[in-house]
């Protein structure tokens, strides 16, 4: 969703680019789009990877604070 939100403002440049003389502008815009996407990708990547590592550490069954889930008591999940 973030990627789509980043792309949408740039779409107008793409479809307005049929006239001569705008070639360089389109390249500038697309590189600009790329760097913005990369910024989003690296931030999201760091957050998701960090969350995964933390989840593995915190919710392993050998963690001192681990406790049975509510579903274990019912025996069905």
């Amino acid at each position: 969703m973030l990627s789509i939100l980043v792309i949408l403002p740039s779409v107008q440049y793409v479809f307005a680019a049929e006239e001569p003389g705008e070639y360089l502008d389109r390249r500038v815009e697309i590189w600009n789009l790329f760097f913005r996407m990369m910024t989003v990708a690296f931030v999201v990547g760091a957050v998701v990877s960090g969350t995964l590592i933390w989840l593995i550490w915190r919710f392993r069954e050998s963690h001192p604070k681990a406790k049975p889930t509510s579903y274990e008591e019912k025996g069905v999940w």
Partner: protein
Amino acid sequence: MVLELAKPRPIWYIMFSTHHTDIGLLYMITSLAFLFMGGALAIAIRMELFYPGVQFIADSMTFNRMFTIHGTTMIFLFILPFASGVGNYFVPIIVRYKDMAYPKLNAIAFWMIPPAGALVWLSFADFGWYAQPPYSLISSPAPAADMWIFGLKILGVSSILGAINFIVTILKCKHPDLPLSKMPLLGWSFLSSSIIMIVAMPTFAAALLMLLMDRMGVTGFFNPAMGGDPIAYAHLFWFTFHPEVYVLVIPAIGMMYEIIPRFSRKPIFSQGSGMFAFIMLALVSFASWGHHMFATGMSFTEKTVFMIGTLAAVPASAMHVFNFLATMWGGRIKFATPMMWATGGIALFFAAGAGGVVNTAMPLDFITHDSYWVVGHFHLFVFGTIAFGSIGFLYYMFPYITGRMYHEKLGQVHFILSFVGAVMVFFTQHILGLFGMPRRVFDYPPIPEWIAMNQLAGVGAFLILAGSVIFLGNLIYSSGKGKDADMDDPFGLGGKYYYPYQAKTPHH
């Protein structure tokens, strides 16, 4: 439970059976055999590239043959049949039906694979796994190329028959008390991937037929000398094979949906978002094939459309990852071997997806195009995500198939070697691509960075090989001499699940 080795059945009972679990077993054994065969070629390729210059492969043509058959084997003879094997086991159980909808058709679909595999391997064709014309028309020696084409035709028909069977079994044979919205996500993964298969595969079947006729000189669809257009083949090929990427990955995600809640001791966080994401992936898989062809002279507008179409897969893929993370959150996770593979698969899936976003951004695509970056990205998906999900699920199914437990410590060592190896090989290949090394090369100039990174990738490949040897030994030894599994709860997780139901499914 179909193959209780303590009470063995004659092998031909299984070979000529039309029962879904027997056919599932045949699919999996066959696919694992091809995994090791294709893996041996990969090791040979990495050994050849360990140093610049010629090592032990005689010439570039032989090298081309090796990576062609490696790619064809891994995609068509390992990943697809393995997923079909899992589907054969679980789809009838999930939908609570006695078998697949068409058991004999199911057996026919499986028995097409061994002869097709033999054709592919005996051909040892040299034109890459996508047989790109005009090379495949004018230079590729016959009969190798023709045998490969026939092998792929047979595999395509087998895949289509299998997909029809899955769709009919799920939609028409499902128990009336089980609404589709409550069907486990593994079932949804097979439904969506089968629909993609049905829509996508006929295009490639037609393209192969056109290619064969071109090779025979009857037509000139893709032959520039006869007024044909090789780019048309690329369009037809990628119209099938970009969606095919999702056919490969969606069942692996479905397998993770079985493992992660089970070992987190919680239900899946959101059944609805998982279903929605599968449907979305099935739809957007057809909106992105052109991103493989940015360098073929497409207009800027076309490239932008395909770039946005490809990026549309990001939200759906992210929904799966967030669903997995949210399921693990608050659980009491047992990191047995299947869960380790599934978790590693999530991490590598995310990394591969991030690389995919870079690939589809057309400015960078021109930098990474035809470089080792592409090799690293593709393998991070097929090995890091699909093979990780599949191997994890094989460990998960092992006690249900054999009635015995695999050796847990060896399974964990296998995972660690494979995970570290995958990172060393495929992350390194991304960087190697950015350093300018082209893919599909037999030799390379002695640039110090290229040598170092190829050697790092080579060491990673050997780690994967070591893990694979342990894996094979574990499977063989534990099948015969492993501890008896508690069939109600082989992993000691507690709770009730639907798998023991399969023990009640009668053979026929």
